[in-house]
């Protein structure tokens, strides 16, 4: 009998054109968040499930932001694996800065498929759906249970998506392990991540007519000083747990981080980073701005708690009586990780090695994903996906072959995880 792994790889090869079209169609369905209206994106994925004859449920606490949940049980004892991907994508920015036919073109040029969300994470979400459908076809060779979750609002914190599912359907979605296709690069598997600490700073001054610069402090000028002062946060040193410290000390891991995420990434994994993502100051050119709003995206590494950052921000703000601060990220999220040598991690490494010849190393990553909901519940969650190089940029793209490899690795790793006891695949 042909091993299941070979059957899966053959099926993916046979359906190559169909899979590319599937991703292309998904990219052509705009799901920018904000505004976060993801109904069309969900409908697109539902149509796929229906074509495959698969049952699913729509869970939509917000009517504009439906989540999809599908599950099958093999009726044989085994672990419960959960696949998770998000439907929403970053906003496209300004259309005229996109080449290759605009942000929703799905154009393929020189082996790359272009459009907002191709990398983050329509490639990965399609990989989950294809994996689910393929494993369902071959469920008679598997044990345990497989669940598929596609969520609406990962880009804005997951309150109505994965967060909602964990609060209201925990028994169905927590499982024993989560596999997620967010971008990771072929060189790494992500076992942990920094946590975002989002702060809104509001600078308030009296304001005045713009010609009377002596009459009021300028909220915008105070904002520039505040930005400089906040840089202090990036000097905070983390207290790393030993398993993570060991992993980060590994030269192969550091090299993979720099190769996968760009020079400097290995350093950033262990550092507090600061990004002023949004600025909005002043009403009119000829008025001294009485308000300036800064939205800061601070990323905390494993070993720096939110409590510590809050204390440091409070200290910095002592010099800025005009400034108030509000926390908008989830107050209880912390940088999170699971076992860097766990079972699923090894299965992903083996699958990736077979598919691409590269054995990805376990890394902590910079960006937050919904995987944190599993890790914070004590369930291991691993991420393997395409290159994150172009996520969030104009001309975001994913390599077509890269996409197919992600599908292959997910299908093989998931099948291996659900292999009946004592059997490989």
């Amino acid at each position, binding site marked *: 009998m042909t091993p299941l792994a070979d059957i899966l790889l053959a099926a993916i090869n046979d359906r190559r054109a169909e899979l590319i079209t599937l991703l292309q169609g998904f990219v052509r369905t705009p799901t920018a968040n*904000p505004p976060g209206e993801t109904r069309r994106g969900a409908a697109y994925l539902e149509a796929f499930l229906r074509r495959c004859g698969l049952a699913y449920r729509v869970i939509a606490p917000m009517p504009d932001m439906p989540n999809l949940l599908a599950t099958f049980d093999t009726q044989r004892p085994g672990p419960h694996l959960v696949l998770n991907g998000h439907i929403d994508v*970053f*906003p496209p*920015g*300004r259309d005229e*800065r996109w080449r290759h036919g605009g942000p929703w073109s799905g154009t393929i040029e020189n082996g790359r498929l272009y459009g907002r969300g191709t990398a983050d994470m329509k490639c990965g979400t399609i990989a989950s759906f294809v994996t689910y459908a393929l494993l369902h076809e071959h469920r008679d060779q598997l044990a345990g249970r497989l669940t598929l979750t596609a969520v609406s609002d990962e*880009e804005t914190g997951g309150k109505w998506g994965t967060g909602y599912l964990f609060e209201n359907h925990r028994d169905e979605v927590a499982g024993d392990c989560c596999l997620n296709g967010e971008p990771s690069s072929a060189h790494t598997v992500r076992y942990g991540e*920094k946590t*975002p600490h*989002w702060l809104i700073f509001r600078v*308030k001054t*009296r*304001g*005045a*007519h*713009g*010609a*009377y*610069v*002596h*009459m009021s402090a300028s909220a*915008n000028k105070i*904002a520039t000083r505040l*930005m400089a002062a906040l840089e202090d946060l990036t000097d905070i040193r983390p207290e790393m747990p030993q398993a993570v410290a060991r992993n980060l000390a590994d030269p192969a891991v550091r090299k993979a981080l720099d190769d996968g*995420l*760009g*020079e*400097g*990434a290995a350093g*950033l994994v262990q550092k507090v*980073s*600061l*990004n*002023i*993502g*949004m*600025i*909005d*100051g002043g*009403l*009119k*050119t*000829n*008025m*001294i*701005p*009485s*308000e*300036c709003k800064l*939205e*800061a*995206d601070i*990323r905390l590494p494993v070993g720096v708690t939110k409590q510590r950052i809050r204390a440091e921000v409070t200290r910095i703000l002592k010099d800025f009586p005009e400034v108030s601060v509000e926390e*908008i990220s989830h107050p209880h999220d912390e940088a999170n990780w699971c076992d860097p040598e766990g079972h699923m991690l090894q299965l992903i490494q083996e699958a990736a090695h077979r598919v691409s010849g590269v054995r990805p190393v376990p890394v902590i*990553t910079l960006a*937050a994903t919904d995987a944190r909901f599993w890790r914070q519940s004590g369930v291991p969650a691993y991420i393997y996906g395409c290159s*994150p190089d172009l996520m*969030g*940029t*104009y001309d975001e793209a994913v390599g077509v072959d890269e996409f197919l490899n992600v599908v292959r690795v997910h299908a093989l790793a998931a099948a291996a995880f659900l292999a009946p006891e004592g059997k490989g695949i």
Partner: protein
Amino acid sequence: MSDLRRRLLAMIDADRDALVDLLSRLVRARSPNPPGDTRAAAAVLAGWLEVRGAPYRVVACNPTMPNLIGSIEGARAGPHLVLNGHIDTFPPVAAERWTDDPFSGRILDDKVWGTGSSDMKQGTASLVAVYGWLHALKAEIGGRLTLTAVSDEETFGPNGARYLLEHHSSEVLGDCLLNAEPGAPTTVRFAEKAPLWIGIDIETVGAHGAYPHKSPSATRIAAALIEDLAAIEETDVELPPALARAIANGAPEIDRIHLAGAAANMGRVTLNIGTWNGGMLVNMLPGHSRIEADIRLPWGVSPTAMVAKVGKIVARYSHASMRVISSQAPEWSDPDHIMVDLIRRNAHEIAGLNVRPIPSLAGTDARLWRQRGVPAFTYGTTATNVAMPDEHTDINEWLGVVKTHALSALDYLSRGATK
């Protein structure tokens, strides 16, 4: 005092309550610009003129931004005086910090409160009223009086004063302009600094916010650029003697009315970063940021030189590009002009004020007349909380200004007879 002047003052006194009501209603007829819909406020002014039978017509190149213009001919030859005020206001600032509704028009503590009550609905109401009273006296005055109430001074006048000067110049140019922007009734403004507005765009690749090593941050570049731009405030300035003298003589009064530091700012380049935006989402590394700088040039500094100076600073940042939004040269009129003399004498007579000719920090539509060679002067009430919460106008001070406007216009137009 001549009989004519006495009768004019009597008319004003008789209209006192109606006048205060006019200002209150004008404030309630909100006209923030942007967006700049001035129809309701223009209708309030038109109503005043209708009741008094004073001629006017609506000129509206943009239907939502009507201007009122009207002219009356005196009985004799004489100079042509143009009155100019604007109908629009700043957008209301920080609504939650106002004691009352920002457009209340409330009359309380002998003050009229609300957005535009000072800048410059008090002034425009005054000029409209003066035009109405002098219309009643037109058989006894000389020359010609033209009223212009315009829609978009706050956004530089493309639909308002500038439009009128371009398309109706023979009607609205005149021999002298009297404008009633707020300042202080102890000063008459004969010059103003010139606004130079520059937009700067910063464009980078952008990235996910967790990857700050992947792209320069447009907001961070903008912050650094803003810090660097402060250098333009150190520009050496050589003021023309008339201006240097007026600033030196007026310094204590300038600092009194516009707070300490105002006189020093008259003679130097100032920089305000009026708006600063950037980014799309908190967790994206911003790929663009935009700054709009409001630079004010004193007399003797050319906009061309300043644009070059800003350009040099911007050029240090490869991701930044700049464009000039608006540029003009600082202008001034003769501080010894007859209109200055009339305002000084009348303000002294009416309110016991010693009025000094000084330049102004802020720009007004008066500059458009100066640019066309017409002497232009601004006289108005104290600017109280302009572009701040709780903007208001003191009614008694305002009535003194209204009378000074009325008498100065009358005196100016009567000169034809005595020439």
